[in-house]
Each structure stands twice: as C-alpha cells, then as structure tokens.
C-alpha cells in the first residue's frame, strides 16, 4: 500500500497539474453542438484553449464570460447573461456548458440563481440546455473538473425513465475518464459493438476531437454525443465507468435511473481486460469474439517479448490519479518497479498504487525522485521533456497535454490491442535509448568491475548491477 504524501513547498516548480475548469470544459467538448463557457476572465479561457489546440491540433470551441475587473466587483450576472445570449445568437449551440473559475468562485457568484433569472428573462432559451458546474481553480485538478462535469450532465440531462419505462439490455452507457483518448474511445466502441452491445459514450470526445475534416465551418463542437442520446441513457442495461473519477457520475446515473453500474479502474493490461471481456460477455450473453481471443494471445506474446526490456526498470511516472494507477499497474505487471510516482490530486486509487510512496506534487518533485532513485524511464505529459533531457532518460509521453508530438488523440492504451502497442512502444523506447547510451565499452566495464584504487565501487550488489545494466 502506497503512502500518500502532500506537498510542503510554497512554490510549485514545473507544474504537473492542470486546472479544474478546463477539465470541466473538456467534458462538454464530448457533446455534440456544444459550446463550453468558462465563467471568468478571458485569460482563463485563452490559456485553456491554447492548451487544447496544441494537444489535439484541432480548432476547439471554448468561450469566456470575459470578466473584467469592474465586472468582478459588480458580480458576473451581466457578463454571463450577455455571453449566453451572444453564443445562442451567433453559434446556435445545442447545449452550453458553464464552468466557474477561481475569479467568479472567489467572488461568490451564484450561477444557479443567475441561470434561473436568465431563463425567466429570455424565453427563447427555454429549450437550450444550460449545464453549470462549479470548478474553482484553487481546488482539485483537471480530472476532478471532468468528473464533476459528467456527473452534472447526468443529473441535468438524463431523463428519469417513465413508470414502467423498460430498459434495453443491449444498450450500455460508458462513462470514460478524461485519461482516455479519442482513440481509446473508438477502440472501446468497436469492442462493445463486437459483443452486439449498443454503447453511448458520455462524453464522446472521439466523435468530436478525433481529427476530421468537416465540410462546413462550425463554431461549436462537431460530433460527440447528442443531447437526445444523453436523455435516453436511463434506458440502458448497464453503465460502465472507466476510472475511479467516474464512479460518482455512475452513482448519480443509478440513483436517478436505476441503471446498475460497474467501475473499471484499469483497462490497460492483461488481467484488467480479461475482467472487462468477461463482464461484456456476461452482460451481452455472447461469447468473446475470436478477434479478441487472438488479440489476447498477441498481448501475452508481446509481454513475453517486452519483459526482457521493461522488467526490472525503475520507472518514474507523473500523471493524474487514474492514469497513474492504470499505467503504473500495467508496468508493475510487466515486472518494472514504479520507483517515483507523482500525481495531481487526491483519489481513493492512489494508495492502491503498487509503489512505496505517491507524492501529490509537481514535475520538480518527479525529477528529483527520478534522480535520487536512479530511475531509468520517465513517463509523464509533454511538460516532462525538460526533465527527461536533463536526466538523459528515455521519455514516454502520456496524459494531457502532449503538444510536442503528433497523434496525441490516437494514442491507445485500452484493450488487449492497445496494451500490446503501448508495451511495444515503451520497450522500443528503452531499446533505442540503450543502443544510443549504454553500449559496452572497455572503460565502462572497468568502472563497473572497478580497479582497486577506485574505492567503494562495489558497495552493494545493486550498485554494481546498475553500472553494468
């Protein structure tokens, strides 16, 4: 069981964390015809927007109530009203998702009350869903914002089934955590469909942010799950939540509609996918398709090929709790040691991470730990590139943001196939790094085996092992 350590520094250096409001806004990006709106100063939106654009390499819809200093003093009602009307008139959205920020939370804006007032003043908005979620910057992190937003969407948009509203056992709700990429969601969609199930993904960023070429210019999201489909989610046979962050949304769904749920905390690795397949087979009443039987064999084979390279590695990982839990679990399963683990926010999965200590911290902490513990593989988002360069470690990018490589949206980690590819990628990274940096030379051995003069060269088996490795 891992010990969870909180930060003691006053100054975060090279943050790992991203803010809650943009996590919330991200969730709305998985809805069709949506316009996410940050209630705050325009910088809050501008930074978030740039981050999403650099990650997905897509135009991303995100608006702001553009709170000025004066507006902040007076309260944000007018700005919110104006923003909603403006968006309604200009972009004809199917839904507006509103996230608060530090500014408006500090100010104490009562957005729920504002919305009531706005609706009463503007009857033309009667049919426009307005979903508000409270996401102050000074609390939680990206995945918290996402989780909260999805729970709110369920609360507001899913319809309570009628008195004897029957459910369709083949219809399945999937609530993916924000650590799943569009590629992951597409992979899951195919898997569920191969079991004859009809999945509804909430949110469905695969539909909106998978990279595609629209015929027309549209200022809102294109693709994603529609408001109607969300409304009907109460008729599903099951809800599958992926990542502990989605547990609450799944519970809200169950309380509201009675749809039972199951949380899959991991979908990367052999056993997690065995459980997933078993579950799908049970709820669909179908045998596991041949395709996945072959993929399972391929994954097992990949693990065997890769364990020579990944096994025994000392890994440093920095990621949000659910991603950290999943990645570190998979690497542990492969025989690697997760020696440095840093995350962004509290979560009940953290203490179950297979490592000694998990720090809620920043990339400076990760870099320091990786150095102290002689890690030989670094895994985090793109901001880790500076640390990787300084430490001269092979660097695997995962999580959000990934702005310095292409294809972030298509990176796969779920399913047998996704795990297989991930394992190959990490192993090949390690192999390439070894080739470039660890070729045996007469001198390396000399240092390793040590000449008598060089005292302390063999203080422990571990140390000798390291220098030879």
């Amino acid at each position: 069981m891992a010990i969870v350590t909180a930060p003691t520094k006053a100054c975060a250096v090279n943050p790992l964390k991203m803010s809650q409001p943009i996590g919330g806004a991200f969730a709305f990006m998985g809805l069709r015809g949506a316009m996410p709106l940050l209630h705050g100063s325009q910088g809050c939106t501008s930074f978030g927007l740039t981050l999403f654009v650099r990650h997905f390499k897509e135009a991303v819809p995100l608006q702001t109530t553009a709170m000025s200093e004066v507006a902040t003093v007076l309260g944000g009602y007018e700005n919110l009203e104006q923003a909603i009307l403006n968006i309604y008139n200009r972009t004809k959205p199917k839904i507006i998702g509103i996230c608060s920020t530090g500014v408006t939370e500090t100010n104490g804006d009562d957005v729920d009350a504002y919305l009531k007032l706005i609706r009463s003043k503007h009857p033309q908005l009667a049919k426009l869903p307005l979903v508000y979620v409270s996401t102050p910057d000074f609390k939680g992190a990206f995945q918290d914002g996402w989780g909260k937003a999805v729970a709110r969407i369920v609360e507001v948009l899913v319809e309570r089934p009628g008195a004897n509203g029957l459910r369709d056992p083949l219809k399945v709700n999937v609530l993916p955590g924000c650590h799943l990429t569009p590629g992951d969601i597409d992979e899951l969609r195919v898997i569920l469909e191969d079991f004859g199930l009809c999945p509804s993904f909430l949110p469905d960023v695969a539909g909106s942010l998978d990279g595609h070429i629209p015929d027309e210019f549209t200022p809102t999201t294109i693709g994603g799950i529609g408001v109607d489909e969300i409304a009907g989610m109460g008729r599903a046979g099951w809800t599958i939540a992926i990542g502990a962050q989605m547990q609450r949304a799944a519970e809200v769904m169950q309380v509201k509609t009675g749809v039972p749920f199951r949380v899959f905390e991991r979908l990367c690795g052999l056993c997690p996918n065995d459980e997933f397949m078993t579950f799908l087979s049970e709820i669909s009443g179908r045998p596991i398709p041949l395709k996945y039987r072959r993929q399972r064999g391929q994954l097992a084979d990949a693990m065997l090929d890769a364990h020579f390279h990944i096994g025994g590695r000392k890994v440093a990982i920095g990621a949000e709790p659910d991603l950290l839990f999943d990645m570190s679990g998979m690497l542990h399963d492969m025989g690697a040691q997760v020696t440095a683990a840093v995350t962004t926010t509290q979560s009940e999965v953290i203490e179950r991470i297979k490592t000694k200590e998990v720090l809620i911290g920043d990339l400076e902490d990760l870099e320091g730990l990786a150095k102290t513990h002689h890690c030989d593989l670094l895994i985090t988002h793109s901001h880790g590139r500076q640390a990787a360069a300084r430490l001269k470690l092979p660097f695997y990018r995962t999580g959000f943001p990934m702005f310095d490589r292409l294809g972030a949206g298509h990176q796969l980690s779920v399913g047998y196939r996704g795990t297989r590819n991930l394992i190959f990628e990490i192993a090949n990274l390690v192999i390439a790094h070894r080739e470039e940096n660890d070729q045996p030379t007469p001198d390396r051995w000399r240092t390793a085996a040590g000449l008598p003069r060089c005292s302390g060269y063999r203080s422990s088996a571990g140390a000798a092992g390291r220098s030879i490795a």
Partner: protein
Amino acid sequence: MRSLAATVQNIFDEPGCAKNGIKSEAERKNGCTKQLQPGSAAGGCAFDGAKVALQPFTDVAHLVHGPIACEGNSWDNRGAASSGSNLWRTSFTTDLSETDIVFGGEKRLCKAIKEIIDKCDPPAIFVYQTCIPAMIGDDINAVCKAASQRFAKPVIPINSPGFVGSKNLGNKLAGEALLDYVIGTQEPDYTTPYDINLIGEYNLSGELWQVKPLLDELGIRILSCISGDGKYREVASSHRARAAMLVCSKSMINVARKMEQRYGIPFFEGAFYGIQDSSESLRQLARLLVERGAPADLLGRTEAVIAREEAWARAAIGPYRPRFEGKKALLITGGVKSWSIVAALQEAGLELVGTSVKKSTRKDKERIKELMGQDAHVIEDITPREMFKMLKDAKADIMLSGGKSQFVALKAAMPWLDINQERCHAYMGYVGMVKLVEEIDKSLSSPMWEQLRRPAPWQALAKAMEQMQSPAAAIACDPALAETARRARKICVCNTVDLGTIEDAIYAHGLRSVAAVREHTNAAGGCCRRRIEGILVSDPSAMVQAAE
C-alpha cells in the same frame, strides 16, 4: 509608487502611439483596449501579455502568484530561444489553494521567493500578479520590496492581473515594471559608440540570430534586447545605449518613448521582416548611431552590407518567381507585418488577394495602399467562417497567418504558413525572408493538397450504391445460409434482379456479355456493370476457352 489604475490610465495616454495621436482627449481617456464581448471574445489577458513580454529574459526566475490555472495551463508554450541560461523555461507558481484564498497568499509568496533563491539564486525574480490575489488584496509590491531587501536581490513586481485588460495592455504593463524597477539600476561594464537596444523583440525560434551576425559585422553591439535572449544585467544597464529600435510597436512603445525621455536614447520603429524592411532598419540604426557620435563611416559600411545582402536575397528569391506565377496569397496578420511581408511576397512574384489590417496603424495602411494599389483587398476583420469559405472557394492558393487560424485554413485543405509567434521556422532578416519563400514554395508545390481536395469515395460512388441494403454480414459468412443468400443477392439494385436470376439466365442461354444479360434479365447494367462482368468471366469453361 503609482496605483495599478493610474498606470493603466497612463498607458492609455501613450503619446508615442500612432492611433492615439488622432483621438480626442476624451477618447484617449476611454482607453484604447476594445471592450471585451462576453461569449465572443478571444485572446489572452493582461497577465498573459506581461508574461509574454518578459519571459524571454533567460536568466530571470519568473514566479506566477496565483492558482494553478494561470501558470499550470500555460507554461512552456513559447519558442523563444536562449544562448545561455535556461532558467526562464522553469516554471514557478504559488499554486494558491482554498486556504490561501481565505487567509491571503502573501505568506506563501514570501516563502516561494525564498525557495527559489535557495534553489536557483537567479540574478532577479519577476513576480507576476494574477486576478485572485489581486481580488483578495495580496500586496505584491510590498512583498517584493520586503523580499528585495531581505535577500539583497531584485524581486520585481509585475502588476498585471488578467482582468485589467487585454494581452496588449499586459505587454505595456510589463514595460512599465521594467521602467519602474529595472532599467537604469545597473551600469554596463563598458560602453561603445555602437551600443543599441532592441525593444519588443522576442527571439522566437531564435530569429534574432538571423540578423545579429550583420550587426556584429558592422560592429553594432546589442547592449540589451528587450526581451529576446535577454539577461537581467543587460536590461538593468540598458539606459546607456546610444540608440534603440522598437521592433514591435504594439507591445512596448511606452518603454522606447520613456527611455528616450529619461535617458535621451533616440528610437525608431522598424522591423526585420522583408528585404526592404531589413535594409531600412539597418540604415536607421546606423543613422541614429552616427547622429549620436559614432564614426560616420558606419553609414557607408552599412550601405555596403545592405547592397550585398539585398543582391544575395534577390538572387535567392529569383528562381521562385516563375514557380509562383499566378499564385494568390492571403495574408492575415497585423501591424508592420501586414505590409512588410506583402512587399516580400510581391518581390517573389506572388499575387496578394488580401491582407488584414486589424492591428495596423494608419501609416501601415498607407504603405499597403502604396504596395497593392488603391483597390487593395484590405480586410478589416474576418470571421473564421468567412475565412473558411474564402479558402474553400479557392480565392487564394495559400494563407499566411498566426496559429489561431491554422485549422481554419487546413480544414479547407489549403496551404497555410505560420508567420506568428508559434512557428518553428525563423523568418527574420534576409536569410529569413529567403526561408519564407522556400517554405511557401514547399507548401504550394506539395501534391498533398490536390489529393485532399478530391471527393471522398462515397461521394464519388453512385447514389444507388449508397441506398442499397445488404443482408447481415453474419448470414453471409454462415455456410448453411450462404448459397441461398448468395443467389438472393441483388446484383442490379435499380431493377432488383438477384444473382440467381442472372446465373440462371447465363447458363440457360450461354450468355457472354453484359448486353446479353441485360436482354435476358431485368438488369440495367449501369451501376452493376462490373458485377455482371465478374459473373460472366467467372464461368470457368468460358475462361479456359478464352485462354486457349
């Protein structure tokens, strides 16, 4: 020390600003920042602007006092280059928590400053104020003052919380901080008659280094570049320069003007984009320096360098002229670039179908008319939707703009080049302009565009095909049902003739051609022509005969 409001007002009053010059006093008081429109605003905040302007100082620790959003969502996103320290790339923030909001964040800020000094001991720390601490009343000026004294190290407050205004205002507030706390606080080791300042040049992608060799060659020393590849000591002693060039007039005109006022450093507005532009800037620098006492031969040497560089650049661009014949470019940028790049593109033989003047001064606009003629397609403002349509309709062959409109152009399957901050190529000076032309050529000549513009196969396929229904795949692969399903397959959708019927006809009548099949069955032989051919050649006896 002035209040933030006073500073902002002061900036709005900027007499050096060309736009301001034509305003009434009342208008000036109103400020020049466009009122933000909730729900349709874009662009960064004042904090963003301040950070952008100062972060290129490479050896300074930049500490953001605020919740995680301000720094956590934005750090490490700019491509300024450094020839020395990389400290500027390290991100520092107080990451304020709810407790800090309740009890005030000054203590945490104090501690953060100490931590940075203990770890990095930088020559200075810039502390950036953000909205929330400003709202709860954290006095960063006081904290910085106390810290400066306690640690005997410049700790500079950059008082530019996001909600006071736009990015542009932030640039200027950053300049004010430099003027108030930094410039003139140190003395250079030595001075020369050739010392200059560059103001508002950020060395993005290291582009300054495309021009610096020419200055080196002329013996002109950059005493301080504010702020690209800049060092704290350099800016602190920049008041000893003999002349200055204001590279981006929008961002730091207050710095240039006030340095002229306070220290008598003459400046001019110039740019190193485009051939003429680069030459003009070199010429002006030489002139100002000679006026301030540099030996007069500098003028002649400068002209020689200009002549050589222009000749080289024109020769390098020459071969592209025929390649660019008839090609139309759309330029969406602003300020100086709106005409300086126009000139360069025209030199390379491109036709300009439009240029934006959103951020341009009146003088800029005049230059454009000079270059493009009176009926120049000058774009005041353009929505993404219009831009998309313009490109889709092939009104232009290539668009040059900033990253913000990147995906509008690309999604229209149109060549696009980044000519703003985020680009990875450097386009400054003569070398840079040649590079720009090369990049345009590379993009225009790519065979990719033609492919991307072709219709998708489903658009190309006959409509009939689209509407066909087919039996479930499962049945098709089940051997028990296969033969029935096989014969039941509709071969011709238009007239719904199934395979069995056609096969029977072929075998009964010994048919050999599509036409014959058409006669004997109800098949139209249009959309299904290929499939009927397949069935015909699939008769093995016929095939063998044919082969013999």
